[in-house]
């Protein structure tokens, strides 16, 4: 079972992502900011990270940079979940090592079809 780390400071979005993933047979671990995400990431291996960009304490871009420094996350797909649809933010994400992004608002179907692009 693929294991996904879901990082978002919004409970509703995190619940929704996690619920959708669980329903599709993924295992999920949740974190409510980048710092917590990083700590949880270090506690085990993940097949995918889905992270919000704008978060308190540590934002998604920094989380992405930090994760890429960890050997076990060198090739792990990291999707940025964001309302920022501007090119600028996408570039920042890419520069930080993000695999791709999912622009809010999205629905569960879109989430699952996007995930299929990065997870086997």
């Amino acid at each position, binding site marked *: 079972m693929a294991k996904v780390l879901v990082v978002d400071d919004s409970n509703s979005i995190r*619940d929704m992502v996690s619920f959708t993933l669980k329903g599709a047979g993924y295992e999920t671990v949740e974190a409510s900011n980048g710092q917590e995400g990083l700590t949880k990431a270090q506690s085990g291996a993940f097949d995918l990270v889905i992270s919000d960009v704008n978060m308190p304490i540590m934002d998604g871009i920094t989380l992405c940079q930090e994760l890429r420094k960890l050997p076990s996350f060198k090739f792990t797909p990291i999707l940025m979940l964001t309302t920022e649809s501007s090119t600028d933010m996408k570039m920042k994400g890419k520069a930080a090592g993000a*695999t791709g992004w999912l622009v809010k608002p999205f629905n569960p179907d879109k989430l699952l079809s996007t995930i299929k692009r990065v997870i086997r």
Partner: protein
Amino acid sequence: MSVDLSQFIPTFLEESYEGLALMESSLLNLEQGDDETINSIFRAAHSIKGGAGTFGFGHVTDFTHLVETLLDEMRDGRREIRSEEVEVLLESVDCMRLMIDAIQNETDYDNSSIDVTSEKLELLLSGSLSDDTGADTPVETSKNASSWQIIFIPEHHLVQTGNDPLLLFNALEDLGELKVNAIVDSLPSLTEMDVEELYLQWELQLFSDSVTEQDIREVFEWVEDECELEVTPVSFDEPETESTSLDETSETAEVKQPNDETPSPEVTAPNIEPEITPSPAGAPVTENKEVKVATKAKPEGGSIRVGVDKVDSLINLVGELVITQSMLSELGNDFDLSKVDKLTAGLEQLLQNTKELQESVMRIRMLPISFAFNRFPRLIHDLAKKTGKDIELIINGENTELDKTVMEQIGDPLVHLVRNAVDHGIETAEKRLAAGKPEKGTVWLDAYHQGGNIVIEIKDDGGGINRDAVFNKALEKGLIEPTTNLTDNQVFELILEPGFSTAKEVSDISGRGVGMDVVKKNIQALGGRIQVDSTPGEGSTFKVNLPLTLAILDGQLVRVGEEVFVVPLITIVESLQAKSENINRVSGDMILYRLRDENVPVIPIFQLFNLPADSQDVDDSLLVVVEADGQKVGLMVDDLLAQQQVVIKSLKDNYQDVSGVSGATILGDGSVAMILDIPGIIQMALDIANKKQKEKQLKMQNEGALI
């Protein structure tokens, strides 16, 4: 797969309210201005916008987008933080709250205020808001072809961002039949190869007559800066030959296609169909119509978010309880008298566990009072503006915890008290200066625990309450007799009586129908009480005393005959043995007890509830002096038993309302005891006294008529 999104809406609403509260309080502090504050406001707006979009509240998204754009400019330093912006943003918070309320209550809302604020936001943004919004709408849809050639040359580090060419190809395959040629030219020798790099290149052919270049590029969207990508429509004859033309060394691989024989290369001309893929963010719903949500989320019975530490401590305690239980049951297996000590110790431990467990469970319902205090900075800000008074609000003890239900019900009375402090308490700047006080008025809001209760103080440094004005007004309204002898505090508390208002003219702020008497009533309904203290020229203090919870009550058990009653400890002033020299039978039935310099009416409980008592004579009785509504009475009981916490069970839910009784509880021995409703009892006793008085008068009149 379809997921029912409505189940996440309660969470969305909850966090939206939190976000709005944060935006509001931060906006009020923004006047000093710092990056972190504006960032946190931005984040809150941003989260609401994201959630609203996801859960289908396009109208909230649209509005919040404007707010967010303005905040973004302020955050980037492109826009100065001026009071004008802050005011509009505060107004926007109100609008957002209005919309969120409407979602929560499944009702409609007044569009006009939102339109007005929208316009203000747009006005502020005009000039700066131009290209930002439409950034992500697809520029154009390129023409279709029946077959596409794609040359994909990724940079060596592509896989290090987690992208996987195979998955990209899988995505392409969803669009049509795909032929993949891998070009292995640039593959280095084994010794030079770095396993973390990608050396392959691909040439792909996609057969489909409905795919646009846009569709294909979208698949490569995430890697477009990390590869060379050429997408070209293929001429309709001989597409095969073109692919082989590239290189001799290429290896052809056919990607398995589930079930089709679809478009062969020689199908018709490229059909140009203006089919625009709906952009997810670009087309928000613009109609500000009501939104019906299939959710059962109602404010009542809502959820509580509990800190993990609280749950952990609960689990710990349950663990300890289990240990105690197993110890006790082991002890019970073969018990003899030599083990009595162990049994006592075990029971002691059980007592301790139960107490801690109870406290711990209670704590789960406890929230910091900041939830109720949060709205006050904004309230003061608005009131200060409206009244033209310069006012500072100082909040202390906002982390004091209080039961959620109590908190929800104390909010409005507190608002009224704060309004009252600003409107009637704080004087105008001229008056303050004339009185030698600082121009800026101060309102304090304090919360602290005191002996199992929570005390909330609303204090102002205004002019204080005019004792004589209150006294005269009360006289005028017939609330008191000219001869009534009242302490200062009793006079001040008259302003909490129904039908009392000293304000010369009813202002916009307070005195809009809801009077101070309602405040008092609400506080009493929560089992609390309110006291007023005031010093002329120095200000007034309203002290609200509330029980920490509505589920458990600190009670004094008393016995009347065979029955045990519970008197809420909060109402008890003192308990005493009645001395006959202090007893004063006024007129027949009414008994007054001289308590220092006060005359306290005595209410014999046995009479009220028609019970056989040990003694019907006041001389031998114990009096429990209780106070409610500023009225002291002595409850005549046979015996004082233990003081203990009791769990309140509603009589109304289980039986029916009984006057004089606010609920019931189950005692340690399994018997049921009634909890006395002190204000109710006082009212009952007064009614009885009045009735008797009237009967007597009637009788005298009749007798007079006979004579």
